[in-house]
């Protein structure tokens, strides 16, 4: 069952991401971006990182995407729709991005990762909090 869900989520995420970088209308691109974020949140759940999934939706969808939409609206009417959406180097970028993907994919599939199966500890979130960096326990400013 999991591979199917994964494939579905990957499809959504990658498809949305491609739409993000290709859609001419920026507002629509931002909406695609939100979909991509949801897809990634789904991936996190699949990886048993529920807390991160929630954080992902809260911060990315709730804050960053909203900010982006605001910025788009505030700079409205800047881009002439008849102008190309990409800059002059887009062809080169596309080629090399594809090359990079091929290289990365080749590497990650070849390396023997030290995979260690294990169950997510029950107190994962408490541990996360305990590991979080913080200032040492000084009660007063000067002592």
């Amino acid at each position: 069952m999991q591979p199917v869900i994964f494939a579905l989520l990957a499809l959504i995420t990658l498809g949305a991401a491609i739409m993000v970088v290709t859609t001419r209308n920026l507002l629509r691109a931002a909406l695609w971006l939100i979909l991509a974020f949801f897809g990634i949140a789904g991936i996190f759940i699949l990886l048993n990182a529920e807390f991160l999934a929630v954080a992902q939706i809260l911060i990315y969808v709730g804050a960053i995407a909203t900010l982006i939409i605001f910025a788009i609206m505030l700079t409205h009417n800047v881009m002439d729709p008849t102008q190309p959406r990409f800059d002059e180097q887009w062809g080169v970028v596309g080629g090399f991005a594809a090359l990079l993907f091929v290289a990365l994919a080749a590497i990650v599939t070849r390396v023997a990762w030290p995979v260690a199966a294990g169950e997510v500890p029950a107190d994962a979130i408490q541990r996360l909090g305990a590991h979080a960096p913080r200032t040492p326990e000084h009660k007063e400013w000067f002592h």
Partner: protein
Amino acid sequence: MVPLTWYLVLAAGLFCIGVFGALARKNAVGVLMGVELMLNAVNINLVAFWRHTAVSGMTGQLFAIFVITVAAAEAAVGLALFIAIYRQRRTVNVEEIDTMKG
């Protein structure tokens, strides 16, 4: 369980799409969206490695939280910059912002 490699390939794909957006988009906000995709790809990697190699320690998730924090700050600062640039130059086309030109 889904193998680790699948996640890594997914992240690589997402990253490359993000790279394309960051380097090929004309609109600065579009560039920023590309960067956000790249950061998310990194997050997927971090969490996938955590889940598959070191599930008892929380380092992977912790770093993902760092990345999210930095991404939020970066978006806020970046967008504020765009608005400032827009107000001064009436454009957010990154090709026209070339004061670094030698």
